[in-house]
């Protein structure tokens, strides 16, 4: 569990019909459900856009890790506009540049490359969550 029970908030891209958006969400699910379920909380970007009080409360005062599918960086922007702090912003495109062997394709169903890229990204995010947990929410 993160220091003081403060979970790291994970906010992925909500881009529908976009391969990189799908990769971002799959990575977020893997982090929050499999890799670091007790240290993280998934918050839907769409709820922040709607101004949902519970979602805004979740990001307020907690470190947030955003995962953006394109340069519009909607996840990072909405966390900030919702009063949260982006401790780390991951971009799927940058992850792909680091893992060129995993070429993502597909939208509703990712190809093997997409799954592999999501997994690699999830591992990077999990490491970031560990850093944030160790440092009480301050990025190392």
């Amino acid at each position, binding site marked *: 569990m993160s220091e003081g029970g403060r979970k790291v908030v994970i906010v992925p891209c909500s881009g529908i019909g976009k*391969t*990189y958006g799908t990769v971002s969400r799959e990575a977020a699910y893997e982090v929050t459900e499999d890799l670091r379920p007790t240290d993280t909380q998934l918050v839907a970007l769409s709820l922040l856009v709607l101004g949902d009080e519970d979602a805004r409360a979740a990001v307020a005062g907690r470190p947030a890790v955003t995962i953006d599918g*394109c*340069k519009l960086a909607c996840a990072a922007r909405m966390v900030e506009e919702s009063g949260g702090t982006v401790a780390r912003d991951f971009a799927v*495109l940058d992850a792909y*540049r680091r893992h*060129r062997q995993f070429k993502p394709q597909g939208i509703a169903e990712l190809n093997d490359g997409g799954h592999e890229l999501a997994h690699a990204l999830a591992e990077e995010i999990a490491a970031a969550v560990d850093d944030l947990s160790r440092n009480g929410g301050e990025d190392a």
Partner: protein
Amino acid sequence: MTEFLETTVDKFIFRVATDRYYSSEGLWAQAEASPLPLGEGLGVRVRIGLSDYLQQRSGDVAFVEVKPEGTVLAFGDELAVIETIKASVSLASPVAGKVVEVNPAMEITPEVINQDPYGEGWLAVIEASDCPPFLPPNFGGERGGVARLLDPQAYFLEMKREAEEEAKRL
């Protein structure tokens, strides 16, 4: 200072630099100062890059592979392949000649194509072996490069028409 033609289609703004020529595909070609007399043609360095429209339509660039220095290309030969978040796009050379310089940024920071398509995002420099595109429009001949490239105004109109058609399909 470079001047631009500009149009807005849907929510997108597209700019066309007026100081260079364009292939219909959307690659620009800009002749550099040459020690050779105007009209000599051979040996003129021509810098190549993507138009603003082409880079926006292609999407965020992940990787770029440009033909290495020394590669000899005919007009229309593949000069580079860009891999974007949408697709892999093969780019045909707008001039014939030898690749004499490749932008080193393509290896490390290919996103510069999206950030500055008419400046730091250039792809390569080709030493033209063909009629280069800086020559006056009335310079003809069977090997005339100008005839195969569009001037900024013509490309602007072509690009605008294509962008508007694309917007209607969405």
